[in-house]
């Protein structure tokens, strides 16, 4: 067999598809005048840099959204993994509180917004942090709990045979084994979290990407600004997910050794 790799001609299709997407967008904007074209979106971005909205440069909006999601994500990760571990290793705790968790779980994060605003007010960041926190934590708790309760009994028995106590088993066997599932939960949580960020900022904020998106609906529709917001959210969320994947690979190097 020759070792020369066949060039994958289908890659042309990938390029074509992106071009087609741009063409469709451009055509739609030509038909509907209030819909911004790709060119207008780029131009709008530069205009946004020159003429800040509410006197705040675009970096302030990006950083505001990033700060909100990162703070809420950190809190939700600590609380979510903690709660998931408790559900996983304390049968009594699970028996008592899993039903409570199960009746809160089906309430969508966005449905919490009105009551959280009634409780913590519309101004300030407290309600936003809480809304985003609720959006992120559910998936982390569920994934942590599921992976801990599904730990291979063989590992647990091996640890027991070697004389590990409960705490050692948790730290050296159960938790490391659950890391991939916990990270999967974090990623799911983050995408709900970004939706909550945009929602919270659209309802009441003086800065943030969701605020920019909301501004695009004020008076005359400024869809170019919305597209700028969409691109910014997509970039920020990809950046956070990417950093998370890097951390995951550092934390569990054995996943790379998985040779087929």
């Amino acid at each position: 067999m020759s070792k020369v790799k066949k060039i994958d001609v289908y890659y042309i299709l990938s390029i074509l598809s992106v071009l087609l997407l741009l063409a469709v967008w451009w055509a739609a904007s030509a038909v509907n005048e209030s819909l911004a074209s790709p060119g207008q979106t780029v131009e709008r971005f530069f205009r946004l840099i020159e003429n800040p909205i509410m006197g705040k440069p675009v970096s302030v909006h990006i950083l505001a959204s990033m700060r909100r999601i990162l703070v809420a994500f950190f809190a939700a990760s600590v609380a979510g993994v903690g709660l998931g571990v408790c559900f996983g290793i304390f049968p009594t705790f699970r028996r008592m509180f899993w039903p409570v968790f199960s009746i809160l779980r089906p309430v969508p994060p966005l449905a919490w917004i009105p009551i959280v605003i009634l409780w913590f007010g519309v101004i300030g960041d407290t309600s936003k942090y809480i809304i985003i926190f609720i959006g992120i934590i559910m998936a982390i708790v569920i994934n942590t709990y599921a992976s801990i309760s599904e730990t291979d009994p063989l590992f647990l028995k091996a640890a027991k045979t070697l004389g590990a106590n409960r705490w050692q088993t948790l730290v050296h066997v159960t938790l490391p084994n659950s890391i991939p599932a916990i990270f999967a939960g974090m990623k799911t949580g983050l995408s709900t979290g970004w939706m909550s960020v945009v929602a919270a900022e659209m309802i009441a904020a003086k800065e943030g990407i969701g605020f920019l998106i909301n501004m695009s609906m004020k008076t005359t529709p400024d869809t170019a600004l919305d597209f700028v917001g969409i691109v910014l959210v997509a970039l920020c969320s990809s950046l956070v997910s990417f950093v998370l994947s890097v951390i995951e690979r550092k934390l569990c190097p054995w996943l790379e050794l998985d040779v087929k």
Partner: protein
Amino acid sequence: MYNEKTRSVGMKVFLNVSGLLMFFGIWELVVALGLISEKKLVAPSAIFMTFIDKLTNVVPDGNTIIVHTLTSLELVLIGFVLSCLIGVPLGLLMGFFKPANRFFTPIFEIIRPIPPLAWIPIVIVVLGIGIQAEAFIIFVAAFVPCVINSYTGIQATSKTLLDVAKTAGASKTQLFFKVGIPSALPMVFTGIKISFGSAWATLVAAEMIASTVGLGFMIQQGRNAVRPDIVLLGMSVIGLIGAALTGLLSILEKKALPWRNLK
């Protein structure tokens, strides 16, 4: 080590019930003792009274709870069914045929990270204000899990099964319909369940678009009128219906895929 084999059934039931009793008991008590203002939280019993009242009363949001619920259900089902009809075949094609994969994956990856809410300003310009715009937001939210699961499911088709079928002379189309799709079905069903969850979770967002009826609209109005009982009732109904329909989908799944239960 982490099991509870020694525990009797009665004890298990007692613990399960005690957690819930504690939760609702403390909630009821906190309100009864006046630790939290009635303008912020009302007791579970008061929410139930509001539910009875809202069956006939149209104040403050203009409709009874039944009308709100039916409107929301209709909206979510339109978006959800559309996303399944388009998302599942797309995911299956992307997972099975390389050209389809190369063509659709970049578009999908560009659209995927956009939060459904961010579409609202564009959707209003293109589709106007109305049920189409709202259904589109739900469609977008439900679409992604449908595609991802169908794609992953059909990609995981056993190589052995494919080879056997090939040896028996199956064409590429036959492989797709007779081997790929059946073996992907469990994952497809999981995707449909997840996508229903996303659709239902986006309801409140979709009803932010100038709607005048629906459960999401009702809780917004409840907040404006400072009626925590209305807000909490809306949340409870949204939660209950979401859980009930997810349960229904799980039952359908067991009926549709009997071989999945043979472990």
